[in-house]
């Protein structure tokens, strides 16, 4: 009786721990096969608003029923290690709640084992970096239960680059230069006026 009570408590506690601290990435199995349209090393120009087609399906080599808990799939654009170097705001952390590897949502769809595909228009505000695509499968409590990605486990193959917009505009640049020149010239004007005032008062 006491043992059963203890077991129930332990189970509840572990569930609580999981929902509080989030599941870890290393505990997930790579049950999905994901492909994306960019070829390895391709550079996508954000200003052209390129389209990326992502397809995902269940990896049939896993035992049947592994996807019984899967309810939704979220596909995300993730930073490759080379773009995470010396950038703590993009750090990979095992605890998925704190993980910052995948910061851009491509799509969220209900789960189905095959025939999944989505064409995404790259957002203009995606920064310049090297990326891969990852899909997470979530259960009904919205806790990650499985994943798949376009690259290998070390995240070194099949990566593509995005070249972001600079955000600069010719009109902004011209305005900046004009105002700068105005500041410096008005200073010259001040010195001239000051000399004149001194001359007059004498």
């Amino acid at each position, binding site marked *: 009786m006491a043992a059963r009570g203890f077991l129930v408590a332990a189970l509840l506690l572990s569930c609580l721990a999981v929902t509080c601290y989030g599941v870890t990435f290393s505990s997930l199995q790579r049950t999905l096969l994901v492909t994306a349209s960019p070829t390895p090393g391709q550079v996508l120009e954000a200003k052209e608003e390129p389209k990326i087609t992502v397809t995902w399906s269940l990896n049939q080599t896993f035992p049947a029923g592994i996807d019984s808990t899967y309810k939704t799939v979220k596909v995300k654009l993730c930073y490759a290690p080379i773009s995470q170097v010396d950038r703590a705001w993009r750090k990979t952390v095992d605890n998925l709640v704190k993980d910052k590897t995948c910061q851009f949502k491509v799509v969220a769809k209900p789960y189905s084992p095959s025939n999944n595909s989505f064409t995404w228009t790259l957002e203009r505000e995606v920064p310049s970096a090297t990326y891969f695509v990852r899909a997470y499968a979530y259960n009904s409590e919205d806790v990650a239960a499985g994943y798949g990605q376009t690259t290998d486990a070390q995240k070194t193959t099949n990566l593509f680059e995005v070249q*972001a917009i600079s955000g600069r505009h010719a009109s902004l640049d011209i305005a900046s230069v004009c105002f700068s020149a105005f500041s410096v010239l008005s200073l010259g004007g001040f010195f001239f006026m000051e000399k004149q005032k001194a001359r007059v008062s004498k």
Partner: protein
Amino acid sequence: PTPKDTDMELPNAATNSGDKKFALPVDSENKATEFRIYSAAAPHMRAFHLSWVSFFACFVSTFAAPPLLPIIRDNLNLTSTDIGNAGIAAVTGAVFARITMGTACDLFGPRLASAALILLTAPAVFCSAMANSPVSFLLVRFFTGFSLATFVSTQFWMSSMFSAPVVGTANGVAGGWGNLGGGATQLIMPLVFSLIRDIGVTKFTAWRIAFSIPALFQTLSAFAIFFLGQDLPDGNYSRLQKSGDKHKDNFKQVLYHAVTNYRGWILALTYGYCFGVELTVDNIIAQYFYDRFNVSLHTAGIIAASFGLANLFSRPGGGLLSDVVAKKFGMRGRLWTLWIVQMLGGLFCILLGKVGSLGVSVAVMLIFSVFVQAACGLTFGVVPFVSRRSLGVISGMTGGGGNVGAVLTQVIFFRGSRYSAETGITLMGVMIICCTLPLLFIFFPQWGGLFCGPSSKGITEEEYYMSEWNSTEKDKGFHKASLKFAHNSRSERGKKVDSALTPSNETPPTHV
């Protein structure tokens, strides 16, 4: 009645050109003896408002980038090292700019010197909109940071307009309300950015447009200073120099008398460990709370802003405290209070690195901010008395020392991953305590130091300030302003000592 009392109670300086009427009571140098914060009367209070607003604008510009870094770092592909270097660059430029500014104030007057600096650094803020790489980002932050030298012109201007009994308060409020810009910008820039974004501008362009606000504000403040401001209660340097009322001083002599005054060097070091620490914390505190306590970036920004916003009352409080203590205990009181407050600031800094819970940490941070900022105000209650001839360069050296402290603490404790942020903060507290000890060595022969009373040789204020002029210069009468100042500074003897001395007139005593 002692000469001190009669000088201060004369509303219109009858000893000077009697046509001048001032809204505030003045002393024999026409410096205001009262500080009325709600007034904008020319020239004293108007100079106050012009100087704190322009200094505030420069602070907003210099620290405009940190709150927008999450967007800028993605746009310009910055690494943590790039960001750290740019932060150090932002405070490095002002080290030498502040010393140069001090010299410029001594020679050209604070009005032209500050207007010139503000207009010359405004292009860096305007051109921030064109930054497209880590290098260009570092360069704009470096050149924008030069504008923090307006601090020196602010303090110099206040020291020229306000008399000894209120100079600490005037300097403290002007400096504190200017420093407020470092906190206000953490709220202003994200707000401007989101307004521009709401119009529909993409974020990589919106942050660039947002920089035009601090740039325009800065430029406008320079115009206001030029057209509405005045160097001295009696007029502007250029007119006074032409009419012979003020001579154009010798640059080499001004520099020599500043550099050979050891008190200036000690204050430069200690200021690095109140103001310098304040600048460092402005740069690192948001990240510290974000990383250690996992608050949102928005919350971290608000906490960071509150550190800077404490300047609204803490630095002015320091200046006021300096003046209040001086009434009874004179310069010795000012020095003791500065030492105690800055030491306590160091203790709270050590504590800040050690507390592990969010609520307590924020509370300790706020207490720490009050002590450290009050120490800044207290420092500039002492600076106006170190030298009269070279007031500008001494102010510049002290101000520059503040920035050196900021560079040193960031390079030693907050760069790379040698120390965790909390260890860095604790060690910085230890360094504050060590670098505040030199205050014990400051000694004014006419007033004393922390452990000694005034020199037994009976050296007077006049002798101390006259030692900055040689006999040729005295023959030409260049020393007259210093003489007036020396006389007015007798209040620094404190109440107990003053009543024991017999009143003397303006000629220096013959004995040594």
